[in-house]
């Protein structure tokens, strides 16, 4: 028998796919729920850290500005109310103040008319009128002593032989001159380079920086101020001008930048921190990169684990499949290992039981077939029983010697027909008509031998003639009747009847005689009797019928002592119901 092609999905692949799908769902959940949150948190944390750094810078800048203003205020406090008439102590203190601060370039006090009353750095180069027109002078007066004015960075040109890049702080200072209240201006120049360190020292990441800008967008400090002044670099200040405090973003040379804007308290200058996103968010980038690598590695590891796990789980099933293939090829002497998972163990046990049962059934069938053949052989042997043959041949010789040639021919013919049907070219089944013919020939021979001590009648229902039955089942019954019934009847003629008919689903044969019958105690064990010399016995026929047709079929023996015996053979009529 050839097998068709395998169809359907492999259990191993299905298990592997199921595992991968489950893991993918878990990874997707992590990816969609955890990663964005953590990534956002890292981003916010990075920006917050940058803000804190800038805030520290802002605090430093505010501190510096406050200290400068404090210094200016202190300088103002040193000037007496009538400075023109007072001595030089306050001048010495101003000079000491200038020398004590390493960022202070000069201190100078100007009178209301713009003339220099005292300056720490020599003679004034400008005329009083030019001084009065200087922006720092005018703005100081506008502050009216309450506010100090900060100038933009510039080259200080007030004094001879001194050119310094400075930021000027100026403040108006009331004084009295000959009883008249006037307003002068205290000027303090701070070295620009030292001042710019306040912002230039702020580092935001590897490339980030901070710069100061006034309210009109003019740069106060910038780490790339030279390039900007030379038109080699530009800082987009428009966006920054739109807000005093907050965050903004821009892009320069393809790099995204975070702008953090804050305002100095005293000067209202904006301190702008510029942080490059790819630097401050390096942790976020590293996290995303790491999580991506980890997820990709997890997928690969899961694939490996899924493969191994699916293989391990399905291994006993494959072993089962393999051994079943061997069984399919006819190898029945195998045994599954009853180990592993409970379900597999249960299947293995059932499989082993099934195999054992199959082996047992096959042995049983073989044995039955063997028994059948044995019975057939016995039946054949009975047919060529030497006694029967000897007696028959002896009878033939006797007839021939007595001149009964015709009877001898008839006996020989009957004997030939008897053996021909017995052999039946090796067939185990013959037609009902042939079985009855076989019985008829037997009874012809026996009738001649026993000189009509019995008479017989053979009838067959027309519909039953062409049905097939196992051979040599009626002759033993007739032989039994002749041997036992006739022997008991000394001088009475035995009547033997053989009939074949259909009864429902059964094909029935009846062998009846009016002999002495069978005692009840013997009748009960009749089918257990061992075959004797004179015949193979009812048991043999009964077993042969059961071997061929199954349990419900066989012999039924009814007998009444001194009246007779009826043996009914019941066989299935339809071939399909036969074994």
């Amino acid at each position: 028998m050839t097998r068709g092609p395998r169809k359907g999905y492999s259990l191993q692949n299905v298990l592997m796919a199921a595992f991968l799908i489950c893991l993918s769902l878990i990874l997707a959940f992590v990816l969609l729920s955890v990663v964005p949150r953590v990534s956002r948190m890292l981003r916010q944390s990075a920006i917050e850290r940058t803000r804190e750094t800038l805030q520290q810078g802002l605090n430093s800048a505010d501190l510096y500005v406050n200290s400068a203003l404090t210094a200016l205020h202190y300088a103002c406090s040193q000037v007496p109310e009538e400075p023109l008439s007072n001595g030089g102590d306050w001048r010495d203190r101003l000079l000491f103040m200038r020398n004590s601060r390493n960022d202070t370039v000069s201190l100078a006090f100007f009178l209301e008319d713009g003339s220099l009353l005292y300056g720490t750095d020599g003679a004034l180069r400008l005329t009083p009128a030019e001084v009065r027109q200087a922006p720092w002078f005018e703005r100081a007066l506008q502050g009216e002593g309450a506010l100090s004015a900060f100038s933009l960075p510039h080259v200080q040109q007030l004094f001879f032989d001194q050119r310094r890049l400075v930021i000027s702080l100026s403040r108006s200072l009331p004084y009295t001159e000959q009883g008249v209240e006037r307003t002068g201006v205290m000027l303090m120049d701070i070295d620009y380079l030292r001042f710019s360190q306040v912002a230039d020292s702020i580092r935001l990441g590897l490339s980030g920086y901070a710069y100061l800008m006034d309210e009109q967008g003019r740069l106060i400090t910038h780490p790339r101020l030279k390039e900007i002044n030379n038109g080699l670099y530009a800082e987009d200040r428009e966006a920054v001008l739109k807000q005093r405090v907050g965050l903004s973003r821009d892009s320069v040379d393809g790099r995204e930048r975070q702008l953090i804007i804050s305002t100095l308290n005293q000067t209202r200058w904006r301190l702008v921190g510029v942080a490059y996103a790819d630097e401050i968010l390096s942790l976020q980038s590293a996290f995303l990169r790491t999580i991506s690598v980890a997820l990709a590695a997890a997928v690969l590891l899961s694939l490996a684990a899924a493969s191994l796990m699916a293989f391990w789980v399905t291994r006993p099933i494959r072993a089962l499949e393999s051994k079943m293939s061997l069984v399919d090829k006819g190898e029945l002497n195998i045994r599954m290992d009853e180990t592993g998972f409970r379900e597999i163990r249960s299947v293995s046990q059932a499989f082993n039981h099934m195999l054992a049962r199959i082996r047992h059934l096959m042995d049983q069938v073989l044995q039955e077939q063997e028994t059948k053949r044995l019975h057939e052989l016995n039946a054949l042997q009975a047919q060529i029983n030497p006694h029967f043959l000897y007696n028959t041949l002896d009878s033939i010789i006797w007839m021939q010697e007595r001149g009964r040639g015709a009877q001898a021919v008839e006996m020989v013919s009957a004997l030939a027909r008897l053996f021909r049907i017995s052999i039946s070219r090796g067939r185990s089944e013959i037609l009902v008509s042939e079985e009855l013919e076989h019985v008829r020939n037997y009874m012809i021979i026996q009738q001649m031998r026993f000189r009509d001590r019995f008479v017989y009648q053979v009838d067959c229902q027309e519909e039953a003639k062409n049905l097939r039955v196992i051979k040599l089942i009626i002759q033993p019954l007739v032989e039994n009747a002749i041997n036992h019934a006739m022997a008991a009847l000394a001088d009475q003629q035995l009547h033997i009847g053989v009939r074949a008919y259909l009864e429902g689903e059964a094909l029935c044969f009846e062998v009846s005689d009016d002999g002495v019958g069978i005692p009840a105690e013997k009748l009960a064990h009749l089918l257990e009797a061992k075959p004797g010399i004179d015949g193979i016995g009812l048991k043999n026929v009964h077993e042969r019928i059961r071997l061929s047709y199954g349990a419900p079929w066989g012999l039924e023996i009814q007998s009444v002592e001194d009246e007779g015996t009826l043996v009914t053979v019941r066989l299935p009529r339809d071939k399909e119901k036969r074994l």
Partner: protein
Amino acid sequence: MKRVLIVSAVCLLLALGLMLWGFAMDRQPAVTEASGYCLLLVREDTGSDLMQLRKGLEAALGGRSLRLERLPAGPVRPDQAPYAAAEALFLYGDASDSLLEALKPLNKPIILLGESREGYAAVLHDEYAGGELLGQEILGSLPEGRVLAIGDSAQPAQARRYEGLLAELGERVLRLDSAQDLLNQDVSDTVCIAALSGAALEEMGALKRSGTLPAALPLYGVEAVESRVGLIEEGLLQGVVVDSPYAMGYIAGQLLARGAAELRYSPMKLVLPDTLYLAQNAQLMFPLLQ
């Protein structure tokens, strides 16, 4: 079994390799100092212009170091230090054919500063733009009238400045070769004098100081040297176009990064009395301040 083991082994190896590669990227790369250097070759190794130029070059080169080397009086030996190990050469003020020929075997990038040659990257001051700036200022601040431009047309830089001035002022400009020529002119209808060279400006300044030229006659000029500040402060000079050696050096550094043999111009700037002391002009007019 074999197939499963192979698949599992391949997946494991891939996962391992992926993790090693991925996590290795997180490690900070070792900061290595640049071993090479660039060479700035000059004839004179002093001066504020050179200082500014060097600063601009260093700013553009980033982490690479820059060495200043004075050119020898005799021939250059390119196979010897410091030429041989230099990654690039910047020539400032002297780009003679013989020098370029001598340096050619080095097969290193050579960038010229202040001069240009066919096939070489170079940075020049934008003299033409400088002339334009002067012209625009004169147009914007002075009434219609004649403008006398003092400059030697044989000098390429002065010629370029004149072209720029001419582009803005057109027929208003009258070019004179020297101060002597100016003195032969009637300046009564002249609205201003534009000195196209530093020397010419010095002469004009001196003439104004001496009263030979009217002090009120507006004077514009070129080149930022300390004396210009004095002229401006005295009110004798109304504006000066200055170049930026810092910008020249910076642009030269950018050219090296670009690797192209192109000619670039560094920007010029017009400084007026109102803007003289601003911080953005401090570097130009007071280079020794920083």
